[in-house]
């Protein structure tokens, strides 16, 4: 078990290293000269030269990479000249908001997906399963921004129940929870489609296993088979689901934050892309990538903890 965790940890470190290399390459593919981007087009040649030396842009690329990596390890993600703040402090303001949005949506989605997926598996190929499957496919195939928009039209414009814009500052986040209803609902619906499909498959996969046949032939009731045997085992892969779905949820959050103007990390990223604020753009990319790697790692470790069979494979 310990060996497995150490091996996975080392693999993850390699991947994170790879991500930093990719980010660094992207940083150097950026259009224009970063010094000019900082100083503007009218800066004197001397100022440009001074800053070039100060930032180490005159050094070979590989040296620049390690300087950048060294800064990164000290938590220095660069400076946003557009927003006049360090990227680290920007992230510190925005990450909690994104965590609040994605966390609520993920928890709601999983609470709803387990019974929904169970119901579909039990009612397999009956009309209500077809309706459920169809609905899930529709939500899965819907552009997230469009779903958000429909929510605004129905619940904000027509019914007037909830505001169309998310709360803007820290204080009102919890006091104006009704502003969070539509963003959370949008992200939940998108995530729910994914989770329910997963749960349904997991239930179906378990229900054809030999132990189910054994239980049934012993005369265990259908209800007991379903809840005591199938459900328990079907929940095992669900443990990994939240970890594995981090990239999906963060992408959904990016769009949801943009639609509802919710000042999280996704909106920061989008605005950085719009305004060519590359340090911020790549800072968020790096954070999101590391979150994904950690999600995968935690999912694998959790799965090994709850399912001892995994530890002996590979």
């Amino acid at each position, binding site marked *: 078990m310990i060996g497995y965790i150490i091996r996975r940890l080392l693999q993850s470190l*390699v*991947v*994170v*290293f*790879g*991500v930093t*290399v*990719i980010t660094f390459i*992207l940083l150097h593919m950026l*259009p224009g000269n970063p010094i000019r981007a900082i100083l503007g087009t009218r800066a004197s040649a001397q100022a440009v030269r001074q800053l070039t030396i100060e930032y180490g842009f005159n050094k070979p690329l590989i040296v620049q990479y390690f300087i950048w990596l060294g800064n990164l390890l000290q938590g220095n993600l660069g400076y946003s000249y557009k927003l006049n703040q360090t990227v680290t402090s920007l992230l510190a303001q925005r990450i909690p908001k994104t965590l609040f949005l994605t966390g609520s949506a993920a928890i709601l989605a999983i609470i709803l997906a387990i019974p929904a997926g169970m119901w579909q598996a*039990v009612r*397999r*190929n009956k009309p209500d399963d077809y309706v459920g499957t169809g609905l899930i*496919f*529709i939500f*899965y*195939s*819907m*552009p997230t*921004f*469009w779903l958000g928009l*429909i929510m605004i039209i129905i619940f904000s*414009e027509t019914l007037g129940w909830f505001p169309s814009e998310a709360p803007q500052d820290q204080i009102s986040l919890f006091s104006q929870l009704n502003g969070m209803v539509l963003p959370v609902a949008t992200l939940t619906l998108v995530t729910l*489609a*994914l989770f329910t*499909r*997963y*749960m*349904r*498959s997991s239930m*179906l*996969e378990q*229900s*054809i296993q030999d132990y*189910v046949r054994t239980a049934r032939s012993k005369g265990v009731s*259908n*209800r007991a*088979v*379903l809840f005591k045997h199938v459900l328990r085992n079907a929940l095992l892969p669900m443990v990994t*689901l939240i970890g*594995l*779905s981090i*990239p*999906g949820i963060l*992408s959904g959050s*990016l*769009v949801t934050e*943009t639609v509802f103007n919710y000042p999280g990390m996704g909106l920061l*990223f*989008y605005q950085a*892309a719009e305004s*060519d604020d590359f340090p911020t*753009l*790549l800072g*968020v*990319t790096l954070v*999101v*990538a*590391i979150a*994904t790697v950690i999600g995968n790692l935690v999912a694998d470790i959790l799965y090994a903890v709850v399912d001892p069979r995994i530890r002996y494979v590979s």
Partner: protein
Amino acid sequence: MGVTITPADVDPSGVGFRGPSGDGVPEGGEGYSSGAAWKMVLRVFIENKLAIVGLGMIVLMTLFCFVGPLIYKTQQVFNNPAIANKPPGPGHLLGTNPVGYDVLGRLMLGGQTSLEIGFAAAIIAVLIGVIWGAAAGLAGGIVDAVMMRIVDAFLAIPFLFLLIVLGAIFTTSILELIIVIGLVAWLVPARLVRGETLSLRVREYVQAVKVMGGGTRRILFRHIIPNTVGTIVVNATFQVADAILYVATLSYLGLGVPPPATNWGHQLANGLSYVYAGYWWLIYPAGIAIIITVVAFNFVGDALRDALEVRLQSR
């Protein structure tokens, strides 16, 4: 509440973890040596009602976009502000948009772009992925490890984020958009094909080719890649669906195709400004067109995967 399920009905991999989850790998010599197995795939596919519905939807959508403009003729080159924002009615079945284009005609034109980008990006993604994955799997050892860690590192960056960074770096034309999506989406097929290659390359017939003096290229293109074709087709189907959604989202974020070119996402994004004006015909048709198309490709992909798994199980 009775749960009676036969193995053939089970779809072990849900939408969330697409791709063949079975451990089995197609066997056989060169390409489609086993015709009977493929006939069975076809039969299972046809028996799946959702697959037929999906295929029908794709055909109808393609006809709508490419043949539709021949029947329903509209002016889509010069705009006419005099007839802007007209609600649906005779003459303009789905109304007109803020610059006076006919919405239904625009929908057909935008659909052409969306479908073309979807298909082209899927083909690029699958081509790169197959060659990369098969080469890594066949090479093995340190080359494989390095190649796959590169894939892992790119996969760690969520697609949408990577797309937006690339979209912000490259100015977008349709061609560049196709390349950017293709360059992001090849990672999953690469991983799938590499997995299959690993188990294919130790098969007797591949060993036999080696013993007989067959070169690496022959093994790769005549024996490995043809045997991964099932996986590739299933993945390509999902890739088309994903690409259409990515284009829509990028267009909404303002990183899509610049005007005068249009696509469904672009039309939706433009319609958003008129939500509060109540111009529903600018918002629903394009959204519904996207959903129908993406749902259709997902239905077909799911059914193809199920059919393929039946082929594997039946051996």
